[in-house]
């Protein structure tokens, strides 16, 4: 059948589309478990796990949780980590889900002030080093940690007379002029972490001088991680010409895992002394109708199966000391013993001011 007039064609199309979408909506209304991403079981309760768009887990691992407990998991992703936290604050009292995963130490203070989480102290915290605990009242539970570090291009330093930098001080040495690319802390989360690293390293009185020297040493600033790493970095899959970049401690194993064929040695390395620790946590959203199940979910996130799934899924490190690292991480990743870090409330109180001062020092 060919409708003769364009209006008829239009209406027919619209009707078909509406019918198709309507079917979709019904499916959602009839059974939340069916629409959940990863659970095949018919749990009595389906929890909504609110997270950022880089959350990843093996479907197998999530399915096993559903089979054991009867609790389904539906993922709700809302943009990047900052967006996730801020939407949770905005929807306080009528939250988008039951549990939030993905709040880190650079964003925590405000969420705690706004009281969006219900406290819960998991027994599994016994297996977690105290250094990772972000909140003594257990309103959030640490799940993983990832370090933001300088990465370097191995090939570049093998061919040149320059030593691999082993301290932030090296970057302002004229010999390293024009070699470094960093992200803008105003628009990038690793950029912010690296600024915090420099503040821990040089103190409230010294960091601006270091950055002003770095600026004089022709540092390149990009808006986001993608343009720094892929656009300006010369190592690994980077396509630029600068051999030093702000990225992650897990970038070297990622360069091996996401290559075909996989190289024996990662083409990039990590400058250990530059690493800043980001701890990522989960919390039960106040207002959930399923607090008991939500606690089970927190326990699951801390349990060994999920913890061992973390590295190759999200390229960060588990906090549970019982969890074993996959081989690619043992061989190619660096876990710095004493990473740089700052107390959560200090970050919360000063973040905006630091970013503004950084902007004045480096960009104006």
């Amino acid at each position, binding site marked *: 059948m060919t409708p003769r*007039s*364009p*209006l008829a*064609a*239009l209406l027919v199309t619209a009707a078909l*589309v*509406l019918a*198709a*979408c309507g079917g*979709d*909506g019904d499916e*959602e209304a009839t059974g939340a478990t069916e*629409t959940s*991403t*990863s659970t095949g079981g018919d749990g009595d309760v389906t929890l909504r796990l609110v*997270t950022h*768009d*880089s*959350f*990843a*887990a*093996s*479907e*197998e691992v*999530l399915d096993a949780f559903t089979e054991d407990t009867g609790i389904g998991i539906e*993922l*709700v*992703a*809302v*943009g*990047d980590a900052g*967006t996730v936290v*801020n*939407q949770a*604050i*905005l*929807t306080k009292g*009528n939250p*988008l889900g039951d549990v939030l995963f993905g709040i880190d130490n650079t964003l925590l203070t405000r969420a705690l002030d706004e009281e969006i989480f219900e406290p819960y102290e998991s027994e599994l915290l016994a297996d977690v080093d105290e250094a990772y605990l972000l909140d003594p009242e257990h309103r959030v539970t640490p799940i993983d940690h990832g370090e933001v570090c300088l990465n370097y291009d191995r090939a570049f330093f093998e061919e040149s007379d320059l030593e691999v930098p082993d301290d932030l001080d090296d970057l302002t040495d004229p010999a390293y002029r024009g070699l470094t690319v960093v992200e*803008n802390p105003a*628009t990038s989360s690793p950029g912010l972490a690296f600024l915090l690293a420099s503040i821990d390293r040089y103190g409230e009185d010294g960091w601006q001088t270091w950055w002003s020297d770095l600026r004089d040493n022709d540092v390149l600033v*990009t808006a*986001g*991680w*993608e343009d720094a790493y*892929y*656009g300006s970095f*010369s190592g*690994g*899959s980077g*396509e*630029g010409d600068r051999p030093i970049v702000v990225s*992650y401690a897990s970038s070297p194993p*990622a*360069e091996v895992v*996401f*290559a*075909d064929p996989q190289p024996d040695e990662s083409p990039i390395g990590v400058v250990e002394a530059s690493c800043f620790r980001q701890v990522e946590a989960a919390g039960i959203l106040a207002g959930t109708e399923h607090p008991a199940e939500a606690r089970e979910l927190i326990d699951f996130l801390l349990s060994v199966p999920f913890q061992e799934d973390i590295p190759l*899924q999200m*390229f960060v490190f588990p906090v549970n000391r019982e969890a074993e690292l996959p081989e690619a991480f043992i061989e190619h990743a660096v876990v710095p013993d004493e990473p740089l870090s700052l107390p959560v409330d200090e970050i919360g109180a000063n973040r905006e001011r630091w970013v503004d001062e950084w902007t004045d020092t480096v960009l104006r």
Partner: protein
Amino acid sequence: MSGVASTTAGPRPGVSLGWVALALPPAAFLAVFFVWPVGAIVAQGLDGAAVAEVVTDPGLRGVAWFTLWQAALSTALTLVLALPGAYVLARYDFRGRRVVRALVTVPFVLPSVVVGAAFLGLLGRGGPLAGLGLDQSVAAVLIAHAFFNYAVVVRTVGGLWAHLDPRLEEAARVLGATRWRAFRRVTLPLLRPAIAAAGSIVFLFCFTSFGVVLVLGGPTRATLEVEVYRQTAQLLDLRTAAALTLVQLAAVVALVAVHARAQRRRAGSLRLRPADEVLVRPRGRQRSFLVANLVLMAALLGIPILSLVERSFAASGGGYGLASWRALSTSRRGSTLFVSPLEALGNSLTYATGATAIALVVGGLAAFAVARHTSLAARGFDVLLMLPLGTSAVTVGFGFLIALDRPPLDLRGSAWLVPIAQALVATPLVVRTLVPVLRSVDDRLKEAAATLGASPWRVVREVELPLVGRAMLVGAGFAFAVSLGEFGATVFLARPDRPTLPVAVVRLLGQPGPLSLGQAMAMSTILLVVTVVAMLAIEGRRVGEVSEL
């Protein structure tokens, strides 16, 4: 020349019951899905003092000024580059014309991160065009904006140009006018409404540009859009965000009002011709003109696109291979992040089809309403329709979360939010494509039909619709393309297990490793092919072509 100019009967000024019936559904749609959510988020932070602070803050004034002038320059550059292209694609009959028309739409749907990466790969240090010295410059931003919006001009202006009676210009030539004078005095005035429509859309896209400015403009440059995003999504400073949103909206209202005024003053009906009759086979100098334009398209649009396709075939150790393409269906399988290219494609097509249907109904009704009247209500309505283009996606997204969260409209987590948000951006494009053509329909035709006893509905169906059938298809293609490419709101609203192609591309780019980059490029290549096929399928249809009048 007597048949050219406007007839005495222009759009009628009064508001009738029929007009209200026409305008009500689109007005309701906008009220529920735009005015209310955005109003809710702005109201949370609204504070007179904050507006004063924003307006007087020198830093933010600088941002506002940069936002304005870069958008103005980008629009001018896009028009200069694309108007000749619109002409050759509307008028010259050559092999592959329809494919080229579809191809120029590709940039429009690519995520700005990908476009940024493509341009960075070409213009950045180490790239083949590094010698131009455009890395982190305003020039790079302007060129990328022209790359993005070329299709807007080709579609909006080309749609009308394809129906202009060429005999008008020929008559002027016979009377002794030079080619340029004939164009300037005859064709240009007739095209002005469409050029103004294209210009306003391009301006709004550049005014709210986010990724391109961040990636290519260097760290010292930001638009108001970037500030709104930072204040809303990162700092949760709703006071400043609300004030910035109001400034943004005020600028959009001012622009659209000025534009609408200019357009109305020149509105007049034209004698439209079937597009097929207007086509000529280029000869002599026309041929050179065609070739010059094709070369420009190849350089501006072709090189960045090809560089992206090329990189999807780059092998880890150098040379070429299919590793990235194979990885699309194997790498990370079993992960919640995994989405096969076929699924992503299915999601993209489903959402975009839904959005297009909504946009055609909402935008179609709205266009008829706007084109019919010059009353204050109609003019205000016209401005309102354009506002979503000038509003930050993050404002709309957060607005949805806090406004549509209670029965009877508890839509949070619903799959409907994605096509609805996409339709908000697509609707103004449908309206702007249709209105210039609807206004050009000779009123005497409608009056003649009415005199002969046709009901108002029959006049619409048998006079207006056949005349604007082509424009309707162009509008549909346009709406489909912008929905396919929408990223800012989609990433916020789509369920993680149902990502669209652009969302999947950006996810892949978030991870280091040659396969991640290669897969992102391969996924972009799929998006590119889908766009071309969709454009050919939608616009290749012959629906109600203008017939001999």
